[in-house]
C-alpha cells in the first residue's frame, strides 16, 4: 500500500513537472513576452525597447533556466540596468540584493505576482479555488446522488417504462452543453422579463422579481439557495445524464449476472437483491467515472462561472488568459494538474475498497 502510494506520488510529481514545463514554454513564447512588455511598460515602446525590457525583467536567457528560476531550483535573476536600478526575481517587497534569498520559485512559496489582480498569485489562486470548491461541492452533492438513483432505477429493470423515461431524460440532459442549458435556465427561471418569474411575481407567489437569481456574484459573499441554484443545476444537469447512463449500463450488466440469479433462486426479494447483491457490484464502474468528473468540473466551471459571473477558478482562468497574465496562468495550471492527479489517486484507492478482487498489497 505505502509502496503503491509512494510510486503514485512520484509519478504525480513527474507529471506535474512535465505539464508545468509545457505550460511555461507556451505562456513564455516571444509574442507573449512582447505583449507583456507593452502592457507593463509602455504601449508605444519601440521594438528595441521591447527587447531590452524583456531582458531587463528577467525574461532573457534560455527557457530551461527561466523554468528553473520559476520552480526555485535555479538562483533568481538579478540585473542592474543602465540607470543603475537593480532588479531581480527575489527583490520584491523592498528586499535588497544582500537580504533577499537566492532562490525564490514556487518551491519557496513565491508564485509570482498577478498582473491582472495586482496581488500574489498564490493568494489569488487559493481564494478563487475556495470559491470554486464550494461550487464543486454543491454540484457533487446534487449530481452524484441524483445520477446514481436514476441510473440504478433505470438499470434494475432494463427495458421497462421507468427505464425508457429516465434514459430519455439522461440522454437529453447529457446532450445539452452548459452554455445552452445555462442560458435556458436563466431565461426560464432567472429572468425578470421572461420565463415563469414575471408570472409568479405578479401572482405574488415569490417575494423578489425572479424565482432564482441569474447571476451568482453575490454568492461570493454568502451562498444561498436563491443565488446558487442555477449555476449548480447547470453544471449538475450535464453530469447527471452522463453518470446515470454509466450507472445504468453497469446495473443492467450486473442484473444479468449469474449471482443475481443465485440470489433470486435463494428466495431473496427483489428489493433485497438490488440493495444487497447488485448495488455494490454496480457502483464499481461509475465510481471511476464520478472521480473523473472532478477534472471535468474544473473545466466545466470555466463556462458556467463566466456565464453566471461567479468569480471562481474558471473565471480567473479566463481573466488570466484574456489578459496575458503569465504568472497566474502558470499558477492555475499547476493547481489544476494537482487536482486532477489527486482525484485520480483517490479514485484508484476507493476502487480497491469497492472491489474486493483488487488488493493493494
Amino acid at each position, binding site marked *: 500500500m505505502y*509502496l*503503491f502510494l509512494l*510510486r503514485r506520488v512520484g509519478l504525480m510529481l513527474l507529471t506535474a513537472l512535465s505539464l508545468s514545463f509545457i505550460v511555461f514554454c507556451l505562456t513564455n513564447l516571444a509574442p507573449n513576452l512582447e505583449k507583456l512588455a507593452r502592457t507593463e511598460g509602455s504601449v508605444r515602446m519601440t521594438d528595441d525597447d521591447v527587447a531590452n525590457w524583456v531582458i531587463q525583467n528577467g525574461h532573457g536567457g534560455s527557457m530551461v533556466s527561466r523554468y528553473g528560476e520559476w520552480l526555485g531550483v535555479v538562483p533568481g535573476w538579478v540585473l542592474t540596468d543602465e540607470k543603475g536600478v537593480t532588479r531581480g526575481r527575489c527583490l520584491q517587497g523592498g528586499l535588497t540584493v544582500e537580504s533577499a534569498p537566492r532562490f525564490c520559485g514556487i518551491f519557496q512559496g513565491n508564485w509570482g505576482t498577478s498582473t491582472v489582480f495586482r496581488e500574489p498569485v498564490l493568494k489569488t489562486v487559493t481564494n478563487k479555488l475556495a470559491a470554486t470548491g464550494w461550487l464543486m461541492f454543491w454540484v457533487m452533492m446534487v449530481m452524484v446522488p441524483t445520477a446514481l438513483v436514476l441510473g440504478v432505477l433505470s438499470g434494475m429493470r432494463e*427495458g421497462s417504462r421507468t427505464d425508457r423515461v429516465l434514459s430519455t431524460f439522461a440522454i437529453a440532459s447529457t446532450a445539452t452543453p452548459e452554455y445552452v442549458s445555462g442560458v435556458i435556465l436563466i431565461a426560464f427561471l432567472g429572468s425578470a422579463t421572461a420565463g415563469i418569474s414575471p408570472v409568479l411575481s405578479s401572482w405574488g407567489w415569490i417575494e423578489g422579481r425572479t424565482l432564482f437569481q441569474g447571476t451568482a456574484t453575490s454568492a461570493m459573499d454568502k451562498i444561498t439557495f436563491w443565488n446558487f441554484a442555477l449555476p449548480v443545476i447547470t453544471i449538475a444537469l450535464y453530469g447527471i445524464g452522463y453518470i446515470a447512463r454509466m450507472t445504468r449500463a453497469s446495473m443492467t450488466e450486473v442484473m444479468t*449476472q*449469474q*449471482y443475481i*440469479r*443465485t*440470489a*433470486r*433462486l*435463494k*428466495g*431473496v*426479494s427483489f428489493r*433485497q437483491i438490488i440493495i*444487497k*447483491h447488485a448495488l*455494490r*457490484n454496480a457502483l*464499481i464502474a461509475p465510481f471511476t467515472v464520478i472521480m473523473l468528473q472532478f477534472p471535468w468540473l474544473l473545466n466545466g466551471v470555466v463556462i458556467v462561472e463566466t456565464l453566471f459571473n461567479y468569480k471562481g477558478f474558471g473565471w480567473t482562468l479566463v481573466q488570466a488568459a484574456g489578459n496575458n497574465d503569465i504568472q497566474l496562468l502558470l499558477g492555475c495550471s499547476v493547481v489544476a494538474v494537482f487536482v486532477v492527479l489527486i482525484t485520480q489517486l483517490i479514485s484508484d484507492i476507493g476502487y480497491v475498497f*469497492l*472491489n*474486493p*478482487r*483488487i*488488493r*493493494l*498489497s
Partner: protein
Amino acid sequence: MADWDPSKPILEIENLSISFFTRLREIPAVMDFSCTVMPGEAMGLVGESGCGKSTVALAVMRDLGKNGKIVAGSIKFKGRDLTNMSEDALRSIRGSEIAMIYQEPMASLNPAMRVGDQLAEVPMIHQNMSRTEALKLARQIVADVRLPDPDRILQAYPHQLSGGQQQRIVIAMALMAKPALLILDEPTTALDVTVEAGIVDLVKELGAKYGTSMLFISHNLGLILDVCDRLCVMYSGEAVETGNVEEVFDNMRHPYTQALFRSIPLPGADKNASPLIAIPGNFPLPHERPKGCNFGPRCDYFKEGLCNKGDISMSAVPDDDRHASRCERWQEIDWAAPPAKRKAVAKTPIGPVVLKLDDLKKYYSVSSGAFGGGASKVVKANETLSFEAHEGETLAIVGESGCGKSTFAKVLMGLETATSGQIMLFDENVQDTPIQARNVDTVSSLQMVFQNPFDTLNPSMSVGRQIIRALEVFNIGTSDADREARMLELLDLVKLPRAFAERMPRQLSGGQKQRVGIARAFAGGAKIVVADEPVSALDVSVQAAVTDLLMEIQRKNKTTLLFISHDLSIVRYLSDRVMVMYLGHVVELGTTDQVFSPPYHPYTEALLSAVPIADTRVVKRRIVLEGDIPSAMNPPSGCPFQTRCRWKSEVPNGLCDREVPPVKVMAGGHQIKCHLDDTILNTMEPVIKIAAE
C-alpha cells in the same frame, strides 16, 4: 405443506411445454415433457446442449426470464402446482424447499460479498434466523461439505477460493435450508476430474444423509450412472426415453439413446478395431424441427410414412420399472444387433522420431502484488520435460488444469521460449526461436487446433477466406486460383460441403467450426499438430465425428498428433502413447496400455478412478484425492504429488518430502516418476475392471 403425503412424488412434471417468445416467432424449447421424482430419488436429465434440459430446471424454479413462458402442462411440487403460483409463494419455496446448484461456481457467487454472508442469507430469509445463529449454521454446513478451516472460508470472498471450494460453497448454500429437492445443473462441468469425483461423492453422501431428492442435469452419461437412480434422455426439447438407470443403460429402447452410447468412448472401444460411430447430421434448430419424430432424419431405423407422420407419444416398455420410449418402432428393432456401419481400419505404422524434447524447462517469474510490487516468485510451469514423438503417432498429454500442459504447447509453438533444455523439431533446435523468428516451413509444419472453436475463427471473415489467408501466410500456391482450389480440397478433407467456403463462422455449428479450425491447421501440410482439448467444447455426438476426422487425416498424412486433454476416456480411445503431467512434472509416460493398467503412478491411479464411465459392467475402485492441487507458485518440497498421495506411507524415511523422485524405467520403456519400490508398484490392482467378462 402439511397435507403432502411422503409416499407421493415430490416433483411431478406433466406434459410440460415451454416456449420462448421473440419478435419473430414463438420458439418451442420443451414440448410435452413429463417426469416424476420420488422422495429421496435422484433423477438424471441427459442430453446434448440445446435439448432443453436446463430450461426444464429453470421452469421448476419458475425463472424463465422475460421471454420464456410455460405454455402447457403442470409442475407439481409436493402436490402444489408451481405454474400458477404467486411471486411471493414462489419466493418462500425457492431456496428453502427447492435449491439449485449451478454450472459455474465462480459466476454464481457474488464477488463483492463474503462467503459467510451469502450462506447466512438463506436461513435469515426463510427461517427469520438471527445473523449470529445463521452464521453458526453456515459454519456447520461448511464443515459438512468438507471444507477445511470453515472460519477462514466464511470470512473469504469467492475469488479467494479454488474452483472446487467454490462449488462446495454453492452446495453448502443449497443445503442451508435443508431443501426437499435439489436441482443440479451440470454441477461439475467446469471442474477437473479429480475435483469432480470429490463433489460427486459429496452430493451422493449428502443426498443420502438428508434424504434430499435430486434433479441432476448433465451431458455426461458416466456421471449420471454414478449419481442417479432414474434418468430421462432428452433430444431437441422432448424426453425420448425415461426409466431406471441400469435399465436404460443396458436395455435402451430408443435409437437416440443407442446412438449416444455408441458415440462415446467406453472401455473396449479402439480407434482401429472398433471406432466410435458418430450420429450423422446435425441437431435440428428449434424452429426447424421435422414433422413427427425429431430424431427421424438422423435415425438409422427411420421409416418413411411412420416416423414422420405425426406427433409421437411416449409408450411404456412393459415389464420394466416405469420405462418408456418415444419411438414408434421400438418393438420391431433388434436392439442386440451389432452396429452395421462399424468398419475396422488398419493401424498406422509408427515412423521415425520427428520431435524430441530434452530436459525442457519453462519458468515464469511473477510479482505477487496487484499493483506490480512485492517480491517476485518463480513459477515452474514445466520441469524437466523429456520425451520423443514419432511420425504418425498420437501422443496424449493428460493432466488437470495448472499441470503445465498448455505452457508446454506454447513453448513448442514458439509463443514462449524455453528457460532451458532442447526442443528438436526434425533436425532443428527451436527452443529459443520465438514464432516470429521461425521460418515459414517450420511454422506451417507445426500447427495447432484450439479448444474453443467459437473464439478462434475471425467472426467477420468467410470460412474460405480464412483458409486462403492461412495458405497465403504459408506461401502455398502461386496464384489466387491455385489457393482457391487448394482451399476447396481442404474443405473436402474435413468433410465440409464446398459451399461452406462462402459462409461466415456464425452460420456454422460448433462441430463445423472445429472442422474449419482443423482445415486451417492442415493448410500448410502440417507434420505435427498440437490439438489442445479439440473436442472438449463440443457435444458428445459431435466429439466422435471430430475425433474420427482427426484420426483419418492422421492416417492419410502420417501426422504426429499431440493430443492435450483431460478426458481420459477419449485419450484411451485414440492415443498410442500417454504422458501424464502433474504440477509441471511428467509423472508417467508409456504406451496407452501401460498407463491404463498397473503399475500406475499414484496420481494416474487417482485420475483413472475419478473418470466416470457410462458402462454398468465396469467396476471401479474409488480413490478420491484430498485437497486441491498445490499452487505452482508454491509447490510442495520433494515429490510434487506427496501432499495428496495415498501411497506416501509406503516409502520409508520420508523420502517423498525431501527429494523429487527419479524417473524409473519399467518393462517396455514405461516411465514412472515415483519413489515407490518396484515390488509395491507391482502389487497395484487395476482401477477399472469389467465385471462378468
